[in-house]
């Protein structure tokens, strides 16, 4: 090919390019100059407007397909600044109709304008107005230019304050979220999930907004509808939550905590309760206190209420992000480790004189001692001395290994936002890394009774108890059973996931379960709460020391003992003692779960005095003291929570050990 030929081909290319540009320019001239008037009319005189029709979010159902979160339609009154010439006058007209003060409305408008929303964007003033108000506003619509009433789907949390951290809540998208989520099709003014399942599955349950393209006249009134695109409702979530159980949990937590607060532990403000099915890892109930009613965010949260909520920890899901020492609920794990490692047999007894004989000679919670204790009695009465000795025999390395085996100090894998905390299993390496100090053998004794460096979430604890209940299968807990489209088609089914099968002998579990079942029988630390309960329950009370305030109360259990269908863990922050603070909650949950008629009021109602042995008590515990029980208890039954050694006794621990985490209490 000659150079000339190449050049001529390039010239042809240039001619081609110029032709394209000429065609484009002619087309532009045609649209912009010849047809300009027509398009101006379309763009200004008769504006075409797209009115978004918000898609209803998918519903949520409980394990019996009962709706727990729904969507209803409500009328919202909004102001469109672009169409309002005299804002003050319109607010003046509107305020008596809406029964709101002039100032309230103006504040809302100003707050919205601070967000620099486009002026055509409606500012919601009041959601969920009555039909009566609707009629009144429509009658005066001529005097109210720019006032818009829209029927919009709004979230309806049917049970109010009900698993609120798990379910979450919805609110308008904010600027920061918009930046991240814009590429996924989110737009200004969208309502999005801000927490929990609402946030995690937002994309699946939000649906697809529809719209109406309408031609509006110069006063903004629709003249004709040009097109209609129907909104597509979101998918429905079917949860593993048991509504009846969850309601009972919320109610009992509220009542029990109020009672505990009035009886010596005013700081018992936060708590966590979680129930799980040991056969598959399905979460049956989950509640965290302090909690909130997600409906608050729907009607518009008053500023004052919002300010009150700050600092209460209302948004913390203590079940998944609260990390606590396990206290005595750790003892069954110690028992398992000792039996499995051949360090003890179920026949061996250890003599508790109220004080351990090694190291700094920590005390048992029962200063008179438990006498001869085998593993059953050790679990039943929560004897510290027995488990000090197990700790001494096993050593920290073995204890850590077993704790990790049961999923402690490790994320359980629950799909939820915010993500769960991992917790900490203390070990020699951990201590060296964290404190740059070696492990002291005396510290193993604290660990053996669940105090000291441990920190686990209630979710990990319940999963560990469930693994004892089902004799060795560690499941990944889950709360979403299936996703179903609005047409009823199954979109996704979630099945139980086994994380691991623990290499532990069946006899070991049987021994431990027998010991735990004695906790709720005569002589056990939780007998008071279960003595009239018809189904055998395996349980463990506990108290976790808290350097920040009063001790935390734990209670864990599973039932029925021979075929466990439910495992529960409850923690009441600064509730003092596990039995009194958490026991009644567990009882109420089991009543609801098994559909057992409420027994005589005085036995479980926290508004009644807690039964206890009359005995001299240390001064600082005076507030807990209530009159003697209405019915006598067998003399050997001890209500452990009243027998905690006093501070006096703490300080009696020999001086050289005073820098150690206190080991003398527990229960």
């Amino acid at each position, binding site marked *: *090919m000659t150079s000339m*030929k*190449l*050049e001529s*081909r*390039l*010239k*042809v*290319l*240039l001619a081609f*390019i*110029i032709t*394209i*540009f000429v*065609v*484009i*320019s002619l*087309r*532009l*001239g045609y*649209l*912009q*100059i010849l*047809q*300009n008037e*027509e*398009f*101006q009319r*379309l*763009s*200004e005189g008769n*504006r*075409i*407007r*797209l009115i978004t029709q918000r898609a209803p979010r998918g519903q949520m159902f409980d394990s019996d397909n009962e709706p727990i979160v729904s969507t209803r339609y409500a009328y919202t009154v909004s102001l469109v600044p672009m169409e309002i010439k005299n804002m003050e006058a319109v607010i003046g007209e509107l305020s008596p109709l809406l029964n709101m003060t002039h100032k309230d409305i103006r504040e809302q408008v100003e707050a919205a304008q601070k*967000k*620099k*929303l*486009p002026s*055509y964007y409606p500012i919601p003033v009041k959601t969920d107005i009555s039909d009566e108000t609707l009629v009144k506003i429509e009658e005066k619509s001529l005097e109210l230019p720019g006032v818009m009433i829209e029927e919009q789907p709004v979230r309806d949390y049917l049970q109010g304050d009900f698993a609120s951290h798990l379910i979450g809540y919805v609110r308008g998208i904010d*600027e920061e979220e*918009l*930046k*991240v989520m*814009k*590429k*996924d*099709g989110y737009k*200004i003014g969208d309502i999005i999930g801000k927490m929990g399942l609402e946030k995690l599955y937002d994309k699946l349950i939000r649906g697809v907004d529809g*719209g109406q*393209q309408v031609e509006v006249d110069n006063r903004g009134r629709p003249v004709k509808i*040009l*097109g*209609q*695109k129907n909104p597509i409702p979101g998918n429905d979530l079917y949860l593993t939550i048991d509504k009846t159980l969850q309601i009972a949990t919320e109610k009992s937590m509220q009542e029990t905590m109020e009672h505990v607060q009035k009886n010596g532990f005013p700081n018992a403000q936060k708590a966590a309760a979680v129930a799980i099915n040991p056969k598959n890892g399905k979460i049956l109930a989950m509640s965290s206190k302090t909690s909130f009613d997600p409906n608050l965010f729907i009607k518009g949260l008053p500023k004052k209420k919002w300010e009150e909520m700050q600092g209460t920890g209302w948004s913390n899901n203590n079940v998944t992000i609260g990390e606590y020492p396990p206290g005595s609920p750790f003892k069954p794990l110690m028992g398992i480790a000792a039996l499995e490692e051949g360090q003890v047999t179920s026949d061996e007894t250890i003599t508790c004189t109220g004080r351990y004989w090694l190291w700094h000679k920590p005390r048992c919670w029962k200063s008179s001692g438990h006498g001869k204790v085998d593993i059953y009695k050790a679990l039943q009465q929560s004897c510290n001395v027995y488990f000090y000795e197990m700790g001494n025999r096993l050593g920290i390395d073995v204890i850590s290994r077993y704790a990790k085996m049961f999923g402690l100090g490790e994320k359980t894998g629950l799909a939820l936002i915010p993500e769960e905390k991992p917790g900490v299993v203390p070990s020699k390496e951990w201590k060296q890394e964290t404190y740059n100090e070696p492990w002291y053998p005396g510290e193993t004794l604290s660990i053996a009774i669940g105090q000291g460096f441990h920190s686990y979430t209630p979710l990990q604890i319940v999963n560990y108890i469930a693994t004892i209940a089902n004799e060795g299968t560690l499941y990944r807990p889950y709360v979403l059973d299936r996703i179903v489209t609005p047409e009823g088609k199954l979109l996704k089914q979630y099945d139980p996931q086994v994380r691991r099968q623990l290499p532990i002998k069946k006899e070991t579990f049987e021994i431990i379960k027998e010991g735990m079942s004695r906790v709720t029988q005569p002589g056990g630390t939780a007998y008071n709460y279960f003595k009239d309960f018809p189904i055998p329950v395996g349980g463990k009370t506990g108290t976790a020391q808290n350097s920040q305030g009063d001790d935390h109360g734990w209670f864990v259990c599973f039932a029925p003992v021979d075929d466990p269908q439910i495992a529960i863990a409850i923690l009441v922050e600064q509730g003092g003692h596990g039995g009194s603070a958490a026991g009644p909650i567990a009882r109420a949950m089991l009543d609801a779960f098994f559909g057992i008629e409420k027994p005589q009021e005085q036995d479980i109602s926290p508004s009644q005095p807690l039964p206890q042995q009359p005995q001299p008590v240390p001064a600082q515990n005076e507030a807990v003291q209530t009159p003697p029980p209405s019915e006598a208890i067998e003399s050997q039954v001890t209500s452990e929570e009243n027998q905690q050694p006093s501070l006096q006794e703490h300080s009696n621990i020999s001086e050289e050990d005073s820098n150690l985490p206190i080991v003398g209490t527990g229960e």
Partner: protein
Amino acid sequence: MDRKLLKNLDYSVVITVCILLSYSLFIITSASFGQFADVYYYLKRQIVWDILGISILIFILSIDYNVIKKASRYLYGFMIVLLLAVLLIGAEHGGAKSWIDIGPFSMQPSEFSKIIIIIILAKYLSENETLIKTWRGIFLAFLYVGIPLLFILKQPDLGTALVFFAILFGMLFAGGVPIKKLMLIAGSGIAALPILWNFLDKYQKNRLIVFIDPNVDPLGAGYHVIQSKIAVGSGGLMGKGLFKGTQNLLNFLPEQHTDFIFSVIGEELGFIGAIVLLSLYLFLLWKGIKIAMAAKDKFGTLLVVGVLSMYTFHILENVGMTIGLMPITGIPLPFMSYGGSSTLANMIALGIILNVRMRRQKIMF
């Protein structure tokens, strides 16, 4: 860099592109209204892209384009790996899985694949002058384009696929393939369209249907065409004024900072603003053709022709779709649309043109 080389830098092209980039910053700012409270959100990010783009441009100028020729096989392999990665770990934004997310940013490898296609074709066509006159030679050229094309269609990114064909045809034509054969290929391509129709996604079919009659689906697929034409048409001779376009501000325009940025120009700056922009582009392309003619070797000429074909098709398709001349496909307007990958790719392409011009000693010495 060699001072002699710098003397050969085509400053009129550099200045034209600088004007285009500044123009784009104004329009991008205007297009941010109605989308974000922070109206400078896109502006700030685009400035970063422009600065990065200029740095890459300078880097490209510093290497002799014949070095690029030697590296072309590796670049081609790298491109295949990237496109494969998109299919495997890519992220989906707006219906197509074309992106790789890196932290807060997303990269669109298909933008860069266009450049690599240009390089590999320029090498092949310049080294096989006789072979490419045969059907076998033409088939091999199609094969070079066909492999990445399959990945791109899988995403699916129809716009980029069409750009590939524009590049291929421009370069085959300039490379000396007999015109009869080219016409035959184009003819059979058009004849095969009814068969290709069956391979299109539903939304792609919709776009073609509403191209013929937008009123078929005024709220769905036709919405964008109708609203864009209203925007441009209502702009008139002088436009409604910068930051004053109601179609833009009221969000009637879709993606007004990227794919529909020309509609904002048409609405706010009118026919005059649009013609100014088109004149800048035409000047750039005319200078490009002159650089192609003056290049010291066939490889250089073909590189420039490839880039020019790419620019031309982007302009034709992007502007064309906003005024109802072309069906809608999402490809950006060079130097105007907001976007990191496209800005960087366009600056690399510009660097290639300037590079060929700087090293055209054949004529200078």
